[in-house]
């Protein structure tokens, strides 16, 4: 889902960068207000962990594999979509500058796709589903699926706007592949949240809004 350099006109990359910078600014503001400025390093360390988590290969089926994006997981567990923007911005900068995964001119688009869209869709769909069903793990799984699926569709739309890939085949290819990966991402997200709530019940404040006890 990482759009590389050259796959997008420079002016479009610039527009996505501007939008992404607005969300990065809001994420920093969130971190200062909600985490207290002192605790920002804690999220920095967590970002390194998320980078490593993305390295785990997930068996998707049909001989393919994928990896966790983690935007929904971070947003749900830290209780804010801005947490996902913050963490994934750091992860994407390192992936782009050190590993060449994703580009520099397209980094704004990638932050927008995986951090902003993934984080916001993941967080608010979880919040809405949890309000309606009161089921933590089911809500988290569906939210993670939606975050993965919609981010992929957004990526396909961006590629179409860039003139790099036709819209319908792009939506079908990206949508189908990420709908499958999304099922695994949903299952993994739900499983990880289950484990975390067993080990550290205080996470339930963010996940359910009430104490686990």
């Amino acid at each position: 889902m990482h759009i590389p350099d050259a796959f997008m006109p420079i002016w479009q990359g610039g527009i996505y960068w501007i939008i992404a910078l607005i969300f990065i600014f809001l994420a920093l503001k969130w971190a200062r207000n909600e985490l207290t400025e002192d605790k920002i390093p804690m999220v920095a360390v967590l970002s390194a962990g998320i980078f490593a988590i993305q390295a785990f290969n997930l068996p998707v089926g049909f001989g393919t594999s994928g990896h966790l994006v983690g935007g929904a997981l971070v947003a749900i567990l830290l209780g804010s979509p801005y947490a996902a923007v913050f963490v994934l911005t750091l992860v994407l900068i390192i992936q782009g500058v050190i590993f060449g995964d994703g580009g520099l001119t397209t980094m704004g688009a990638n932050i927008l796709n995986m951090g902003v869209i993934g984080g916001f869709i993941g967080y608010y769909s979880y919040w809405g589903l949890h309000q309606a069903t009161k089921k933590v793990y089911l809500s988290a799984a569906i939210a993670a699926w939606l975050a993965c699926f919609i981010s992929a569709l957004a990526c396909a739309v961006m590629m179409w706007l860039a003139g790099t890939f036709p819209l319908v085949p792009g939506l079908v290819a990206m949508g189908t592949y990420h709908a499958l990966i999304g099922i695994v991402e949903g299952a993994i997200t739900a499983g990880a949240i289950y484990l975390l709530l067993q080990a550290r019940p205080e996470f339930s404040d963010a996940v359910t809004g009430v104490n686990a006890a």
Partner: protein
Amino acid sequence: MIEELFAIEEESYRDSIVHRLDARVKLILTIAAIIAVVSYPFEPDLYLVSGGFLLLLIILFGLSKTAVKTYLIRLAMILPFGFFIIVAQIFFKNPRYTEFTVLIDLPFGIAVYQESFLFALMLSLKFIVCVSFIILLSGTTPMQDLLEGAARLGLPAEFTLVLGMTIRYLFVFAIMYRHIQNALATRCFSAYNRALPYRYRISTIAYTIGTFFLRSFEQGERTYMSMLCRGYGRSSYIYITKKPLASTDRLVLGMIMPFIIIFPIIIYLL
């Protein structure tokens, strides 16, 4: 990707003229080259522009004493997603063109178009040039130097601190990742082993990732507490000493930067 981390960092600590250049010079040249290549229109002249930039890259890689194998391995790790999009191009009518010539007629109404093939070729050239500049940058500059270089170029101090900590702990988690992989291998667990029930494989990975998240979170808490014990607080700020560019850095910047800016303009105007 995380498996490459140590190899890239080890590579970046080798010694060569390119390695010794100031990180700021390499950052500026990389960003400028990528912007120049990405900005150039998809026209036949692009072959010449890409050729010029590839020649520059060959010289710089040669000076950096980077092994061809190292470069190719890193390129192969990056290519898949971009390569898929590039290959798929040839089967679609690219919106940049109005007339199409069928190059190969395939069954089920699928065809390879000459114009789309040429576009895919130009796209792949741009892609390879951009990715190669990133490989050169990260392969010749330690991460900490890159960060300090970015800070000296104006990256906000607040962001420098956060990014610095993320980079530092990448290595901690990369080792942790290796240990977990070894532990899973010792238990003969493979995510792709079809002899194991799918549900079991998914739950094992989910719990592993959950544990990893927890360990990252707790590491973050410990680091934060340690920092508090060592005087870190709201009023703390990161201070990076000023460092003027050496004459070699100025010379390299003065030679390569005009090439990056003027060469594509000349080709475009001719």
